[in-house]
């Protein structure tokens, strides 16, 4: 379903965003991975964990948040009957 999702971003490029100094700092990535419960993945597939973290941070870096931070989400909440 997600054929778009970032084979390119799954490569290990360093983040250029000022708020993503974590990229490239493996210790911090390891800490975040452990907080996410990924100790097992970290032990067996450390490069995969690092790549995933850097990909996420790179995406966050290029994302421009909406000007109106009070806007409703889509899809909006619906009453469930």
């Amino acid at each position: 379903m997600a054929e778009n999702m970032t084979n390119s971003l799954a490569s290990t490029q360093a983040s250029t965003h000022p708020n993503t100094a974590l990229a490239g700092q493996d210790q911090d990535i390891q800490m975040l991975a452990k907080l996410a419960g990924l100790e097992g993945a970290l032990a067996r597939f450390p490069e995969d964990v690092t790549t995933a973290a850097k990909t996420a941070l790179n995406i966050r870096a290029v994302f421009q948040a909406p000007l109106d931070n009070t806007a409703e989400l889509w899809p909006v909440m619906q009453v469930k009957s």
Partner: protein
Amino acid sequence: MMHWMTASEMSQAYDAGTLSPVAVVETLLVRINALESQYHAFIQIDREAALAAAKDAERAFKAGRRLGPLHGVPVGIKDIIDMAGQRTSCHSKVMLEHIAAKDAPVITALRGAGAILMGKLALHEFAIGGPSFDLPFPPARNPWNIAHHPGGSSSGSGTALAAGFLPLALGTDTGGSVRHPAAACGLAGLKATYDLVSRQGVYPLSMSLDHVGPMARTVQDVALLLDVMAQTSTSPEANKPVSYTRDLKLGVKGLRIGFIRHFHEKDEIAHPDVTRALNEACEVFRTLGAEVKDITLPSLQEFSAPQKIVLMSEGWAIHARNLRERPEDYAEMSRRKLMCGAFLSAGDYVQAMQMRGVLIDRVNHAFASADILLAANSLDPACQIDDVKEVVRTYTRQARVPFNLTGHPALAMMSGLSCEGLPISLQLIGKNYDEVTVLRAGVAFEQATPWHTMHPELS
């Protein structure tokens, strides 16, 4: 040749009593048996069940009972969609023991329409991790050139259709996974409006982006399949009875087509063969009487970032437990993609969803001056499947993601051949729930061009 017959042609021949569904299924099984070992379209081929269903259909036809146009027509199912009593593998080691308890509603609808379910089709692991070579099943190959990528994640669906194994297939589409194999394999594929087709019983990747879509070799066949699939919608807005096949021949005279040129000429620079085919498509539509003019949407990059944040967040929520407990059971590529969401925050997700609302408004606004939109699909012809650098380079070079984020219907269809003889594709995008107009324009283009009649030569 029987294996290149469309579903519509089969249906007409059944009505005329000149074709046997048993002969159709037997012919396709012979072809599958001869070629499948090279193309890997299937995870599982249901030979006995398909033949039994064909015999049932034949008996029904002889008794004068026809359930509808899909009665006796073979269909393949992406192996991420539940069929009662069968494994839904999601092309993953993680799911090898998973047997579906009941049919997904879209399968129930197909069975009710008398379609013959031929088996489960290959995909990228969990519709995200591919093409991968470290999975329990090999990746599907492109019938136009076996060394090339068939697109994905509905790769087996694309391969099976382009190889003449099946006339119809189901795919799913979260970031373009129906439309990418349609592009790479020279097919028609539709991502309908977000909630037009039920997603129940389909293993999710990203619930708010996932779509189940019809795939075929012609737009008319896509409409035929959609007629049945859309019966499953649980959305009040989508539940108005519509025939997607009735108005297909009305043409495009007077239709206003907005051409999103900046997607492939400014936001990303498309392969020259893709650009040429798009310009030629504009001329085809003008010749048919449509008014084509350039239109501006937010850039591909503005759509892409929030789409990825939503996908990563929702995908992580679904796979977190398995990635914590058994990461070794995923392919490397899947691990790298599905763990991304662990490094995003709740605030990231909320802001992406806020931006999604803004982008939906922008696309809806574009429809004030256009009845449908015309855009590129893949920005490059399919690359070689084992050329990792090219797979990486070309994978995000596409214009499909915007319409997963906004939910608008988007039809992919073949629009040319590259200089290397590989298919090129375009997209037609419609207003929400206006698949009728999108399909009508697709059929008009199809009738004016030769592309849908071209098939790869398989040996």
